[in-house]
């Protein structure tokens, strides 16, 4: 069979049935073979970046690998943002690009870009396949690497003539990479030491990161915190690892996390960090996160240990194997005094993260209403980046893993539209609500066409504040209200909806909100709601950039 067939057979072998892609000269030999591999659904996007984000969100929602395909040169370079996005959030993804024929590589031919070189620092691993016989083993290896250990993007670059070359389909029986060994052994010594620290602590706290969701271990997290009576706070990407109504759930930490979560993190005597990479947006100024706490840091990636924050007890391993042993080793106790202390702060500072008591149309009210008008089990929330993202994370009661799909590490505006596309493809029965920035939406809304083509009933809530809101907030607070280039004129979003043939609803008043949401949910196809919200609200609480979590402020007056 020819290389193109080997590629598609390889995907099928790996149970991949969906790819997001965009054609071009060098991948035509591959497209030519799609009709002969009907098991694979190719979704034609309108921009390669969207293919990447869709694959990324598809992976986050389904837990399976997401696949994006692009042509050489501009196709490949258009993918870059989405590759880095998947890298920073550890999303299992496979990026396939075509390249010019082997004899033209390095000759600066038409649409040649050194995709292998460009992608290298943005991927977990990448390959340039120079021989069709290598295709099947390369795909097997790539998929293995992308989905195991700490997941991430893997890129395969394939010259045009390799797609056309005849070769055997030699799918390997096992993968054995001497430079990539996944250590499944539980380090019981380290875990015993960790348990000792936890057992001796009076004010323990758990930081639950994205790793809990990636490794499907939220039930173990629950067991751990209940047995040790340990309050849990999550990172932004850890949201959903713990139901918000669980008595030990104390919100999320970080730049716009809850006041009490940030203060509890700063005052705990033992921190148990699970599957997180100690990011500055989550922890504030590292040096002053907490001078007294002993830190247990469990992560699959040993390079995360001591990178930003020195761990007292670093534990390398998957949470699914390490947590059971940790749970076994810790004593059943209670920390009533400590929990009461947090409760007190929580109730004293409840106002800084509440829905404003106003007749105006606030973003908090809009996103909270979307959460309320949907069934908890059906809702998948996708966001862009900015104020609306933070408010969605604060007020939507996300209580299940894989229910909040947001760009955490890279903070990619424009993620909201293509990611919603990927999310809905991954879970056709979900009610996918995309909370869009009016800025971010304009970066990628060309994908409405894809969404219409694929008949995906996504509901888009444009949070139309007429501003690059988060940038305006920073200019107002940290650049003496010198607002520069943040006030945008907006297109008529209703006409955009109309142009794409989808329902548009305009909401300007608080009273219209619930009705619009209910109406949108009743409509079978995609809906776009333009929420003309109050334009100048700021997100609170806030840890100013470079400050520590203990310096969380609740209003501009404190700055």
């Amino acid at each position: 069979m020819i290389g193109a067939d080997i590629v598609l057979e390889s995907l099928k072998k790996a149970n991949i049935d969906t790819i997001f892609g965009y054609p071009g000269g060098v991948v035509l030999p591959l497209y030519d073979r799609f009709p002969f591999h009907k098991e694979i659904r190719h979704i034609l996007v309108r921009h390669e970046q969207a293919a990447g984000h869709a694959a990324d969100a598809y992976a986050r929602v389904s837990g399976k690998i997401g696949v994006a395909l692009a042509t050489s040169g501009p196709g490949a370079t258009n993918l870059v943002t989405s590759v880095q996005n998947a890298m920073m959030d550890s999303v299992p993804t496979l990026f396939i690009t075509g390249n010019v024929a082997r004899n033209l590589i390095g000759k600066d031919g038409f649409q040649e870009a050194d995709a292998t070189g460009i992608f290298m620092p943005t991927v977990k691993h990448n390959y340039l396949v120079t021989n069709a016989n290598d295709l099947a083993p390369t795909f097997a290896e790539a998929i293995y690497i992308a989905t195991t250990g700490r997941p991430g993007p893997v890129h395969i670059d394939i010259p045009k003539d390799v797609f056309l070359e005849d070769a055997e389909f030699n799918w390997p029986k096992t993968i054995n990479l001497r430079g990539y060994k996944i250590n499944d052994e539980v380090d019981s010594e380290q875990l015993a030491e960790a348990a000792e620290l936890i057992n001796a602590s009076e004010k323990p706290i758990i930081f639950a990161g994205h790793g809990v969701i990636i490794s499907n271990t939220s039930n173990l997290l629950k067991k751990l915190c209940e047995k040790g009576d340990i309050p849990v706070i999550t990172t932004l990407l850890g949201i959903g690892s713990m139901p918000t109504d669980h008595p030990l759930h104390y919100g999320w930490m970080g730049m716009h996390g809850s006041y009490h979560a940030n203060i509890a993190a700063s005052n705990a005597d033992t921190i148990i960090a699970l599957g997180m990479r100690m990011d500055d947006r989550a922890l504030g100024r590292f040096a002053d996160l907490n001078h007294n706490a002993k830190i247990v840091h469990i992560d699959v990636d040993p390079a995360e240990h001591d990178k930003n924050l020195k761990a007292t007890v670093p534990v390398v391993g998957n949470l699914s194997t390490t947590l059971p042993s940790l749970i076994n080793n810790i004593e059943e106790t209670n920390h009533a005094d400590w929990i009461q202390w947090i409760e007190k702060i929580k109730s004293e500072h409840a106002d800084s993260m509440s829905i404003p008591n106003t007749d105006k149309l606030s973003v908090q009210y809009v996103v909270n209403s979307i959460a309320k008008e949907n069934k908890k089990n059906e809702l998948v929330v996708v966001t862009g980046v900015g104020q609306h993202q933070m408010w969605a994370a604060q007020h939507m009661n996300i209580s299940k893993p894989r229910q909040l799909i947001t760009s955490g590490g890279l903070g990619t505006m424009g993620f909201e539209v293509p990611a919603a596309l990927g999310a809905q493809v991954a879970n056709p029965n979900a009610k996918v609500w995309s909370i869009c920035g009016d800025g971010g939406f304009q970066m990628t809304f060309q994908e409405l066409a894809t969404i219409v083509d694929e008949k995906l009933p996504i509901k888009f809530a444009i949070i139309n504040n007429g501003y690059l809101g988060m940038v305006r907030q920073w200019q107002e607070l940290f650049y003496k209200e010198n607002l520069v280039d943040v006030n945008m004129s907006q297109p008529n979003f209703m006409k955009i909806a109309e142009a794409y043939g989808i329902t548009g609803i305009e909401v300007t008043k608080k009273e219209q909100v619930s009705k619009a949401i209910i109406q949108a949910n009743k409509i079978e196809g995609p809906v776009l709601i333009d929420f003309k919200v109050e334009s100048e609200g700021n997100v609170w609480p806030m840890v100013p950039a470079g400050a520590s979590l203990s310096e969380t402020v609740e209003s501009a007056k404190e700055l």
Partner: protein
Amino acid sequence: MKHTVVALVEDKPGVLNRIASLFRRRGFNIDSLAVGTTHEEGISRMTIVIEGNENIADQLEKQLFKLIDVIKVENFTNQNAITRELALIKVKASTQNRREILDILEVFRAQAIDLSTASLVIQIVAHKDTIDALIDNLSRFGILEMVRTGRIAMRRGYTTTTDEVIEYFDDSSKFHSQIGRLSNGDFPFVSD
């Protein structure tokens, strides 16, 4: 403090690129980097000397090891190891002062390996500090050109850095070191 780190890596296109890119991106301050083949086909050996505290060396090791093409990383800093570097130094040398230079070479156990009426090429294999001292002594004659290989290192005694790695050898890891090459074993990047 200086750390000597040895890495065994897949002998594959792009490996040096990955490693150099990692150093640049994470801001590691590299003093020297020496790359060469080993007695095992498909494995190259790198010796990296980096300036920084324990924590930086620890991160370097972990980040290196995280690369799929890196098979093994070992920090030689506190090991009983031999470290060497080779330098070729071309100095101005007239018939009048040639003898004087040759006397200096004797002290440093360096050799003159080429001669012209106005110059000498000197070769020295030694520890970095010895080479630095030789250069100090030669500088007053006028150094015309110099090239140094960077440090290489090996454990003393019977144990090796490679032996634990070799047991992993099998067809699929051989395959891994082949991909990216053309069928004849060449790299796809044609240079005329």
